[in-house]
């Protein structure tokens, strides 16, 4: 509601916007005055701007229902989904400032390059199937899976990754820190009743940079799915790390009673050695995934996942002569949109390059 008591966004009301326009070479906030109707959200207004004053305004969006996670941007300085930010939350005389996500490199206007998150996703070990249970025979009780299910609500809007000050304010931490989205992935799998890996907590601590988190809870504050990222994933993972690494009673108990030394899956055993003794990783080198060309790493990879194999660098999509993505395929030399994975990647990927080790794969070889 506005100060004068009239409903915000009444038909035809003109509202002031400031939108960041530019690319990696620089840019600035530009002022726009645009019509806003009752019931509209910020994304509607951006679409109206594209239809009127700023036809070349770049913005990523898809579902307009808060479920695809595409339209993340910063509205009045707060990371939000623009399709879920109602205009009625602003007063009528308020200027709404819209900027791209700050933590990731900008491509143009409100569109950022979020590939950092996909690299971290590739590095996170996948679900490890339990030994002796055929696919299709998995049975789980609801109480066992419900903690993991909370984290499956994630829509990968990367607002938590964007707001986290560990990488937002310190670019240099990016190689060592995976971010809240991948901590909930680690927690989801560590709490999964059928996941066979036993080293996820060591992985979270040594490879994902769990210790960088100082639990200031901004990830939880911005999550549009209201996942309790800090309380239900990060803190439990920190406590699980404490179990293994900082709790002398548990250490003593495991030495005396040989507790917690359950046999590990094939996938877990190969990785565990490397994770606990791993040093500082090279910047920009992916930690596993295959295709490294290093024979010893490949041999080890046959036995399980080696987190230190180098992934072939992904290629960006094809570009036109000006070095930019074509605006329309009419002006481009091939039909349909260019592959986001790059033209030199074909699917399906060779299985030996995948980050997956089936427990029974040794029997086949």
């Amino acid at each position, binding site marked *: 509601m506005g100060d004068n008591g009239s409903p915000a966004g009444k038909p035809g009301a003109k509202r002031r916007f400031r939108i960041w326009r530019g690319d990696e070479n620089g840019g600035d906030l530009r002022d726009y005055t645009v019509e806003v109707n009752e019931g509209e959200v910020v994304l509607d207004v951006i679409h109206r701007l594209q239809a009127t004053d700023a036809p070349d305004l770049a913005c990523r969006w898809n579902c307009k229902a808060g479920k695809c996670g595409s339209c993340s941007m910063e509205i009045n300085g707060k990371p939000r989904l623009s399709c879920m930010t109602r205009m009625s939350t602003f007063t009528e005389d308020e200027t709404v400032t819209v900027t791209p996500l700050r933590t990731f490199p*900008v491509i143009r206007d409100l569109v950022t390059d979020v590939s950092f998150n996909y690299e971290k996703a590739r590095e996170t070990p996948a679900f490890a199937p339990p030994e002796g249970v055929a696919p299709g025979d998995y049975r789980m009780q609801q109480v066992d899976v419900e903690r993991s299910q909370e984290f499956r609500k994630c829509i990968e809007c990367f607002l938590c990754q964007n707001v986290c000050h560990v990488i937002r304010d310190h670019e240099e931490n990016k190689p060592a820190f995976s971010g809240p989205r991948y901590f909930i992935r680690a927690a989801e799998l*560590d709490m999964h009743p059928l996941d066979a890996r036993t080293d996820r907590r060591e992985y979270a601590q040594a490879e994902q940079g769990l210790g960088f988190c100082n639990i200031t809870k901004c990830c939880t504050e911005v999550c549009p799915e209201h996942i309790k990222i800090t309380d239900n994933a990060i803190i439990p993972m920190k406590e699980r790390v404490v179990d293994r690494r*900082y709790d002398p009673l548990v250490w003593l108990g495991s030495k005396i009673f040989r507790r917690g030394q359950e046999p590990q899956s094939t996938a877990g055993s190969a990785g565990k050695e490397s994770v606990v003794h791993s040093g500082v990783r090279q910047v920009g080198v992916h930690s596993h995934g295959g295709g490294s060309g290093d024979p010893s790493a490949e041999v080890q990879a046959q036995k399980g996942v080696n987190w230190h194999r180098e992934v072939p660098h992904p290629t960006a999509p094809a570009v036109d002569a000006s070095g930019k993505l074509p605006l329309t395929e009419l002006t481009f030399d091939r039909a349909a949109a260019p592959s986001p994975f790059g033209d030199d990647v074909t699917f399906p990927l060779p299985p030996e390059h995948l980050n997956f080790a089936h427990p029974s794969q040794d029997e086949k070889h």
Partner: protein
Amino acid sequence: MTSTAMRPRGTRARAAIAARTLRTDRWWLAPLLTVVGLTAWVAYATVRVFMHKWYWVESYHYLTPFYSPCVTDRCVEGASHFGRFLPGWWIVPDAALTLPFLLLFRLTCYYYRKAYYRSFWLSPPACAVPDGHTTYSGETRFPLLGQNLHRYFFYAAAIISLINTWDAILAFHSPKGFGFGLGNIILLGNVVMLWAYTISCHSCRHIIGGRLKHFSTSPVRYRAWTFVSKLNVRHMQLAWITLGTLALTDFYVMAVAAEWIDDLRFIN
């Protein structure tokens, strides 16, 4: 062919936005209130701990939690359940066995960490507001690596809560035998809140059941975990409520002991 598949370049530039933050709300209010609240409480507690008097009401056996249990040789007899074995230098708090652990329990508490990292250390002061430091290593190295010892201080705090409970029970006393006054309600309320804060601790939630992979095989621990989880949601509120009840209890006992006010008695 006019197009080429290009390799991604190294570090690309972020959007060049001049303003450090574009937040328009009063994001500075919460950290400011935290600084004011915690500073005021620590100042009051420090003064009280080194005052070495007005901690015990002989007639009603009220003992302030700041002096429980009293273990230095200047303690009055009723206040010292565990003997008086420490020297009575002024620098030694009379509850020297318990206060350091209570301090460390709260210092390493997951809620207080958020509160003081945001307000005192400005790392970050608020979400999407830049933090005040050029480098950041979080809790990966000494001394902040020590935050991982929280669960030991939780065990200590649970024992200390038992001692505080015992104090509250002993306080049902008057010169005629059994007695019950306003001071008892305050002491009891404080103990209930201390238990709620202690049990709602994230480490407790982990130990009680959070560490299990299969809840279905441990139904009792699952129910306990569910209960602690409900309390855990209120951990922040309980952290502040207990600061309030501790200060209130101590102040009430001090006021009665110094004879500034009389205890309101219901029975005897």
